[in-house]
């Protein structure tokens, strides 16, 4: 018999099914995902990496204002989407472009925010993906609301709510976990612990034994996984989603990963960390290890490799084609989305701008 406390605490070590050399490890509580899932996941990883690197290149070419890359965190990105069913919801942050695209949202619409022709560019209801949240942790309570509404309507929706390690210090993280627990809301809180909040390492964020341990204070089961092991992540997140769907309430999952690049292209990571701190993490790369495992298991056929390369080439081309041309913006739109019916004052201000533009043209 395990005590209630033990059920709420995470595994002693982050769950890992495939290690950095591609070697398989048995786990008493988690099973290796199906071959199909691993192969599909591999294709998504290759595609995700290409999205990250193409988007970063587009920043250098001035086509995006900024890009917070998830380079090195792609296993988390891919797993978060793969474990969801069609009707489920995803609440992403600014760093989660790859997850959003993985869920089926158009990549150009996804990057609208970072290109700067509007804020959120996709229809949140088309794939049940909330707009990317920049104010840290604020989206987590929205996730609770969406999940609670689903329960009231008798739907078996699960909500995947993402945030970073730094965001777990925000009050909203704690309020969201507590609310979700009290209302038994089917939310999976998925924290990508990449070691840094811009320049601040996790050690200055918390002295808790792990972020997954924070769940117990709210009665939320916490679990932790190797954030660069797609197999482990699919198993852990998949189980969390199943539990939430089965009515067991919210789940907290922490992924141990690493931000191998700077916070964004505008950041200079050399000011706060040494390169030799990064090096060991390069060896833990999520793609390398899955590739090693799939090869050794005889699952990496030329066909799969081609499928992955084609998907990556296609999405990179799509990004270049979609983002190279200057986007068209409509100043009139500045006023159209504030209220269902614009206030008389906004109507006046829209007319003022229209008139100003007409005079400039004349």
């Amino acid at each position: 018999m395990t005590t209630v406390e033990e059920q709420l605490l995470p595994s002693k070590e982050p769950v890992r099914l495939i290690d950095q050399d591609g070697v398989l490890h048995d786990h008493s509580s988690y099973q290796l995902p199906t071959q199909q899932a691993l192969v599909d996941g591999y294709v998504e990883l290759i595609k995700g990496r290409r999205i990250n690197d193409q988007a970063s290149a587009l920043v250098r070419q001035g086509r995006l204002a900024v890009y917070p890359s998830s380079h090195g965190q792609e296993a988390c990105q891919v797993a978060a989407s793969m474990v969801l069913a069609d009707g489920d919801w995803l609440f992403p942050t600014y760093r989660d472009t790859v997850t959003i695209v993985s869920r089926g949202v158009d990549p150009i619409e996804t990057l609208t925010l970072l290109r700067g022709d509007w804020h959120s560019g996709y229809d949140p209801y088309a794939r049940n993906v909330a707009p990317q949240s920049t104010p840290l942790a604020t989206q987590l309570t929205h996730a609770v609301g969406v999940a609670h509404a689903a329960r009231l309507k008798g739907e078996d929706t699960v909500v995947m709510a993402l945030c970073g390690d730094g965001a777990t210090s925000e009050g909203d993280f704690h309020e969201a976990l507590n609310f979700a627990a009290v209302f038994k809301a089917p939310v999976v809180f998925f924290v990508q612990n990449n070691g840094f909040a811009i320049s601040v390492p996790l050690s200055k964020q918390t002295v808790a034994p792990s972020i997954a341990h924070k769940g117990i204070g709210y009665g939320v089961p916490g679990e932790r996984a190797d954030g660069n092991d797609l197999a482990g992540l699919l198993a852990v997140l998949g189980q969390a989603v199943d539990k939430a769907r089965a009515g067991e309430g919210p789940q907290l999952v922490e992924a141990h990963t690493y931000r191998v690049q700077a916070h964004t292209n505008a950041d200079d990571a050399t000011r706060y960390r040494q390169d030799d701190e990064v090096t060991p993490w390069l060896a833990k790369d999520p793609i390398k290890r899955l590739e090693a495992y799939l090869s050794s298991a005889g699952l990496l056929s030329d066909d799969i490799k081609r499928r992955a390369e084609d998907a990556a080439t296609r999405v990179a081309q799509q990004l270049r084609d979609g983002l190279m041309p200057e986007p068209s913006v409509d100043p009139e739109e500045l006023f159209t989305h504030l209220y269902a019916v614009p206030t008389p004052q906004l109507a006046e201000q829209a007319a003022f701008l229209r008139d100003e533009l007409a005079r400039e043209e004349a």
Partner: protein
Amino acid sequence: MTHQKISMAQALNQALRDAMTADDSVLMFGEDVGALGGVFRITDGLTAEFGEDRCFDTPLAESGIVGMAIGLAMNGMRPVVEMQFDAFGYPAFEQIVSHVAKMRNRTRGRIALPMVIRMPYAGGIGGVEHHCDSSEGYYAHTPGLTVVAPSTVADAYTLLRRAIEWPDPVVFMEPKKLYWAKEEVDLTEPAPGIGTAVVRREGADATLIAYGPSVPVAMEAAEAAAAEGRELTVVDLRSVVPFDDETVCAAVRRTGRAVVVAEASGFASVSSEIVARVTERCFHSLAAPVRRVTGFDIPYPPPKLEKFQLPGVDRILDAVDDLQWEDS
């Protein structure tokens, strides 16, 4: 029986009950709003009548309350939340400003948030610190919010019903000091909706512009002025956002003089906005600068001192006296 003598608290309670009856997606939640019926009893009996799923207590965290309401509104509900007191709404400020107000805009109109944040507000009740703030200015300053403040029992009912039906988020400011006074009302009578000010009293000499808790004070001042031979118009804004320039400016043009009355501190406030708008639009009709009677620019004072802060009849009459009558 459509005529009844009820308090604003009862009218608000009735509005919630009728809205919840009319629409299953209307939910009411917050701190102590369940079994207790709210510290002001505005939600009295709703849990008993509609069940725990429809009217419920939440953990004590205002940001969580508003954040959860956002998610519920995103997923088909019409949440109404209560901030227990004006100043206890501040923990939710980030949610209100960064998400409630912006969601429609940032998603190009794809996510609308039909939700109401009920906020018992303002002073005049002998409350200790943090219980008497007039915080409407913060919300009125934030594009994307609709800000409403009733001053009568009938309006409390109508405006709350309209706010709950409104397609966009409404910050609903309830003047605490008006909760208990009873008025004879007919709640079935059609009344103007959100965005429309009303003229409460007609008078040719000057216009008092007020909203929420300041309206009854303005009415009293107009009564006293009439006794001294000066006829005042009183405009009740009813909604601060959208602002009814038309009704306000028509009254000011008719009378040529105006005083704005508001409890909130005057600096960078709703009252300063009203003066600016009226001056910009009615300059040639004005016989004197528009005056203001507002709270001083100080934190809301302790109970024994609040009488010095609140706009009262005498201060309003003095401001009216100051409107350069010697020139006309």
